[in-house]
């Protein structure tokens, strides 16, 4: 491996695959920004009055920034200046709360004449550099509580300030640093537990307690099976039961609609007492309405947990016991979510979570956005409607379609093929960053690389996830493709710094 790098020229020692991904995504993003705004009156592709025209300006300036970082600024500066840079950015983050202008309900923007800029975007870079600087010290060990807390503090400070700015979405990206921490030795169980907790909470609020408990049961049993190496049996019995149980709500619905005329009206929450009375009076099956799928699920899973605890005690199989406990705690969480959410949280906290999860009754209608976005993407089909031929995006059904919802244009006009292409391109780019990071000798470069990969991944997954309805609506842009200078500049700089650090590494070979 090392042999092959010998005798390379400077040009060859840049990761051109990574840079090509970058350029492809930026240009594809520009094409789609034009597609999403061309239906609006006036302006051609290049006209500066349109977003596509402005985006060209942002791209050119971003390339200038990249060139400066790669060719002009000494790479050592990123290592030595990390601490000052970090402190400076945290200061900016706090200052913007008092000095910034309010955009869409959050105070997170500085305004200098025509240019607006969001410190939260640079904060991702400064935090990454700071983490790399601190964690690359030779005596740093993440398994030590003190060091772990230090890393958590570095991540937590900007994150909390950003939450205070009402930019909860941007703050969520910082959760992604957990992947980097895992790479640097954090135990996998913490990752698992955090994942499970978030999953349970989100599923309970957005889907239903039924889905949450079923998912929890599937995951717990999967790890149990993994632990005793009986994956085959789990696939046979576990997946089979899971599949039946996931069909159960549908089956019960079907029965209710078959036997109770108008059952759907009742379930839709029709508030007409008269209609309700008529429906109930006209059916001798109305008791069926009281049957809920959750009863079956709880009857099936709840008795298993105490049995597993007893068995674990007798056989001293602590993994089994821990799993059963985790499952019970999970069910407790599912049922306390409502209580936590409605009775413990303060009004403004709750509303923030509601916005976060797309449950909020706000006038712009978050649910409307997701629905329209899914219609636009879904209507694209296999190969899409063709460039500039999308009706949903052209007619302006999708809000924020050149910024946060740019993926809709891809979905509608380029279809499944285009979407898979974009996801693979991002995936490949992140993979390149991880591979490059692993190849580096300097811990600094490796840690920074993982930070970049984590941020990109979080943005990618949350953004695309929200447009296709598997993530709550969190207003964060699709890196490199979404319209907007702040985000493009920040990601360009972030990647450029990694490219130049990587370039330094390659020089050694």
């Amino acid at each position, binding site marked *: 491996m090392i042999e092959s790098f010998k005798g390379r020229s400077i040009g060859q020692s840049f990761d051109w695959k990574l840079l090509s991904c970058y350029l492809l995504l930026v240009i594809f993003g520009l094409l789609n920004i034009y597609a999403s705004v061309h239906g609006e009156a006036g302006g051609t592709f290049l006209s500066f009055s349109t977003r596509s025209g402005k985006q060209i300006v942002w791209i050119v300036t971003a390339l200038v920034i990249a060139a400066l970082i790669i060719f002009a600024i000494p790479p050592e500066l990123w290592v030595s200046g990390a601490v000052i840079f970090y402190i400076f950015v945290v200061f900016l983050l706090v200052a913007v709360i008092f000095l910034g202008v309010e955009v869409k309900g959050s105070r997170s923007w500085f305004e200098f004449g025509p240019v607006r800029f969001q410190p939260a975007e640079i904060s991702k870079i400064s935090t990454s550099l700071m983490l790399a600087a601190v964690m690359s010290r030779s005596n740093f060990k993440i398994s030590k509580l003190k060091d772990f807390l230090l890393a958590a503090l570095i991540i937590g400070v900007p994150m909390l300030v950003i939450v205070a700015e009402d930019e909860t979405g941007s703050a969520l990206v910082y959760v992604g640093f957990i992947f980097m921490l895992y790479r640097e030795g954090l135990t996998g169980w913490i990752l698992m537990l955090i994942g499970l907790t978030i999953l349970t909470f989100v599923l309970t609020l957005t889907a239903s307690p039924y889905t949450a408990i079923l998912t929890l049961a599937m995951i717990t049993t999967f790890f149990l099976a993994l632990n005793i190496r009986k994956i085959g049996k789990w696939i046979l019995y576990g997946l089979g039961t899971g599949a039946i149980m996931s069909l159960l709500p549908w089956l019960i619905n079907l029965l209710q609609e078959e036997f109770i005329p108008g059952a759907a009206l009742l379930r839709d929450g029709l508030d007409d007492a008269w209609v309700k009375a008529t429906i109930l009076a006209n059916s001798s099956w109305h008791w069926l309405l009281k049957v809920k799928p959750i009863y079956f699920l709880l009857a099936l899973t709840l008795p298993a947990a105490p049995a597993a605890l007893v068995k674990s005690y007798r056989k001293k199989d602590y993994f089994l016991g821990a799993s059963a406990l985790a499952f019970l705690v999970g069910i407790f969480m599912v049922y306390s979510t409502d209580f936590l959410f409605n009775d413990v949280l303060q009004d403004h906290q709750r509303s923030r979570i509601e916005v976060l999860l797309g449950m909020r009754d706000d006038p712009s209608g978050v649910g409307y956005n997701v629905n329209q976005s899914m219609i636009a993407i879904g209507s694209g*089909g*296999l190969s899409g409607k063709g460039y500039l031929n999308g009706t949903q995006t052209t007619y302006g059904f999708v809000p924020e379609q050149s910024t946060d919802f740019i993926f809709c244009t891809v979905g509608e006009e380029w279809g499944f093929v285009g979407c898979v292409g974009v996801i693979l391109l991002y995936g490949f780019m992140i993979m390149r960053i991880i591979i490059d990071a692993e190849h580096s000798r300097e811990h600094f470069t490796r840690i920074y690389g993982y930070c970049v990969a984590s941020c990109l991944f979080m943005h990618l997954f949350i953004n695309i996830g929200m447009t296709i309805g598997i993530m709550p609506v969190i207003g964060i842009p699709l890196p490199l493709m979404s319209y907007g200078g702040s985000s493009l500049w920040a990601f360009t700089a972030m990647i450029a710094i990694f490219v130049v650090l990587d370039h330094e590494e390659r020089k050694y070979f």
Partner: protein
Amino acid sequence: MVARERNLLIGLGVAAVILIARLFIIQIVDTSYKESASNNSMVYDIIYPTRGVIYDRNGKILVGNKVAYDILVTPNEVGEFDTLLLASVLKTDPQAIRNKMAEYRRNRSRIGYQSMVMMKQLSPEDYMRFAEVQYKFPGFKGQVRSIRDYPINAGGNLLGYVSEVDASFIAAHPGEYRSGDYAGKTGIEAAREKDLRGVKGYHIYLRNSRNQIEERYKGGAMDKEAVPGHDIVTTIDADLQQYGQELMANKVGSVVAIEPKTGEILSMISSPGIDVSMLADIGKHYSEIVSDPYKPMFNRTVQASYPPGSVFKLVNGLIGLQEGVLDTKMAYPCNRGYRYSGNHKLGCHAHRSPLVLEEAIMMSCNGFFCYVLKSILENRKYKTIEDAFDRWREYVVSFGFGRKLGSDFPAELGGTIPTSKYYDKIYGKGGWKFTTVVSLSIGQGEIGVTPLQIANLSATVANRGYYYIPHIVKDSPGVEIAPKFHERQYTEVDTTEFKKVIQGMWRAVNSGFGSGGTASIAAVPGLDICGKTGTAQNPHGADNSVFICFAPKDDPKIAIAAYIENAGFGATWACPIASLMVEKYLNGSIAEGQRKDLEKRVMEGNLLDRVHVK
């Protein structure tokens, strides 16, 4: 360490697979998004057809259409607005508007970018006031809508009303109506709904998410124009109907007038009725109408079942003649009634005795008709009284009693004529005889008929033995009525027998006061009115006043029945009302003098206090 890199790369792969799998489902497996997409960009602008106009027999408009405005709101487009100003412009309560907006907010996911009807049927004047300030209320707009207009106050119950369809109505007519449509609910509006409603059309537009119309879809090639409803020509004479309503003011009962030659219903008055001014906006007046103790919604002409009283003597007389147990020379005595079973007596008033059929009809003798029914039921031709009774019933039914006549009017009821089994059940087989059913002789007892059936009897006698099924809609271009309405329906009594009772009816009216004729008050010189009074017992208070007549005697143009609840003798109220209507119809006006005075007395008469209400 390499294991962790591997795990993270696997995780990256899993995340990519999750996204791709979800995309696969919504883009390729699930087709509903594609349908939503076309619904999204296409907006169907429903074009409501104008409802058919309802005319009277002389071409006067009974029900027309006029313009009103609904206020529509697209909640998604509404921002902050001046609720107080809007409320004052729309003449409503600010809280009502706030409540509506809150309701839309609650259902916003179901509403989406649809427009909701916030207020209905504003007059053009009110709408203009709104239009002046409309620019201050983005998201609010007016939609023109045609509503029913009633130029003449004639026949509220008859015409029926049109109102917005509700969930149960839509369910009862699958595929025909959508929420927001209007349909005829009662009367002619309901009976001829299919002709009147027309066919809805639509224009398809492409719109954007702000509900702004961008262009016509395919230049309007896929649009469908609305087809207006067919006009309906009714058999009603608007002037006669209106005049009858005026006569019936403050009285409870019915008047039905039929043209005997065709079976066309000239007027059909159920009093108290629904004023046409309430019909246009029935929703607003509904509770008021329903809570009225005199039940204006109840169409007495086809739904009330009354004992017919003495007018039924005509039927018994005709059956007697047909059965051969009665002839015009046969005389029976009547000394203030008919005595039977020892001490029992069916009373009668003072008149000459003995008397023949013609005189018995003229003077409405009770005793005479007891003998008639006795000879019908005790006829040796039949082995038992049951057989004789059932034969009698067959005759009665052939006159249109005891069953629905089959008119084109919705909600018609059939009344009741008892069968022999009915009495068998009560008294046991062979346990009853003529005297048990003696009241039937004079149209009392276990017998119920509707005013429409009584009017039909009048038309049958006028036609000398047949009738046309009474109906309310005439043939007109595009609307053809069922052939049964053009077929003569004969009774089981020979047509030759009818002239024998008609002479008695003529004498009842035209013999002058003091002659003993019961309906002298109905006489109009030159009109040759033939009539028969009736006084039917009413368990709730005073007797019901009944009168049937037709005129002119030899070329009947109108046959009429008046049935007034708790109004006493037939001659006091029913007789003047029916005769005034005949005079109005045939002469066009009421003669000065006595007749005018009579008209005045009738119109001013208020009998509501006599009526027993719950």
